[in-house]
């Protein structure tokens, strides 16, 4: 009798954790799956931010090295111009190649930073994002090819030839980098607007569920109407600025001037968004 009781007790002790395990495992797995999906996106963004920070540090180091090499190049060039000796020619050729290589490295790192920022920033229109990524990739490939040309160039004439070739590439990189900076600036504001629309939807649905006094409800309705008015003003403004960013890619230097004037163009959008957020804060009592 006693033996029977102990074995039943043991079985119960054995089956309770087993039951718990069987019951909890699928729910744990499901919860983990949905959590991991959302956290993956956040972690991915976090990893991108970290990568950008690392690259920015690298860029600083590379830029210092470039400055050093550029200084050496200038000294060697001055000596060559004044002395015109074989050793001065040798010196100027090697220092120019060194400066060209470190310039390449700086530009490649900078383009890589822009690429990662494009991937990190929400709100950039897909057309612009794809186009910019394509341009960056093309420039990085061109820099890679130019690196080979530097290695192959052995005399002054060859170096001068590739130096001339670089002028147009450098100009393009410079111009397109301003295009990327422009769409990043617009994208950041666009992302704020997109999130504001979602918050507004939440506030509106909350209002319909709320059981408040009639007067408070009518006040709230008026406030929401004001918010909606402000929200409808923004899409045409964004549309204009996005299309301007697209048009600005005509002749060279256009992107740079567009970027320089962007503060003026985006100012009204920013101030409206700021007002919108203030309305939200007032409606929801955020201090």
């Amino acid at each position: 009798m006693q033996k029977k009781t102990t074995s039943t007790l043991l079985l119960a002790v054995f089956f309770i954790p087993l039951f718990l395990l069987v019951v909890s495992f699928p729910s744990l797995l499901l919860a983990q799956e949905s959590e991991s999906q959302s956290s993956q996106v956040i972690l991915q963004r976090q990893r991108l931010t970290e990568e950008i920070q690392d690259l920015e540090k690298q860029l600083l180091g590379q830029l210092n090295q470039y400055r050093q090499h550029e200084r050496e190049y200038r000294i060697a060039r001055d000596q060559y111009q004044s002395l015109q000796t074989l050793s001065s020619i040798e010196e100027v050729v090697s220092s120019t190649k060194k400066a060209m290589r470190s310039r390449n490295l700086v530009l490649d790192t900078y383009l890589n930073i822009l690429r990662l920022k494009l991937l990190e920033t929400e709100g950039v229109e897909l057309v612009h994002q794809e186009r910019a990524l394509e341009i960056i990739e093309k420039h990085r490939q061109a820099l890679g090819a130019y690196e080979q040309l530097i290695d192959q160039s052995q005399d002054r004439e060859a170096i001068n030839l590739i130096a001339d070739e670089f002028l147009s590439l450098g100009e393009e990189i410079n111009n397109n980098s301003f295009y990327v900076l422009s769409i990043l600036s617009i994208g950041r504001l666009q992302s704020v607007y997109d999130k504001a629309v979602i918050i507004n939807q939440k506030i509106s649905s909350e209002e319909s569920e709320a059981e408040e006094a009639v007067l408070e409800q009518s006040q709230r309705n008026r406030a929401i109407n004001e918010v909606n008015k402000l929200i409808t003003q923004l899409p045409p403004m964004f549309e204009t600025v996005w299309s301007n960013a697209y048009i600005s890619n005509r002749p060279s230097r256009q992107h740079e001037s567009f970027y320089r004037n962007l503060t003026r163009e985006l100012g009204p959008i920013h101030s409206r968004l700021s007002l919108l957020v203030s309305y939200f804060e007032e409606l929801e009592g955020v201090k």
Partner: protein
Amino acid sequence: MKNNDDIQTIKPHLPDELPDWEAERWWEKSKSRIKIPQGFFKNKKNILLIVAFFILLLLLLISLSINSQQRSPDILEQPEHTVIQDQELTPLQSQIKELRSQLKKADPAIKESPIPAVEMNLRID
């Protein structure tokens, strides 16, 4: 005389009926007829059950610890101030706060670092 006495003393100890040897045959199964009362931990089944129970318990603990470990990055990745705020603010309020800080970062007056100033024309003249 002494032998006769011995037989007489043995006799009462003999069972009244002899066991059915054909039916019993316990020795063929390498078993003993004598059943010794066993302790709880001397029973193999009981030991196996206890071992299985501990293995299951261990599995349960491992699964729970894995779950908590996977959750921890979520908590870590949130900035400290938002964790504190979440305790005080509603989800909507914290979203609005987050939006305000995002708007500050998106200020067009804050300019990104432009292309590094490098000499594009490195010629030997």
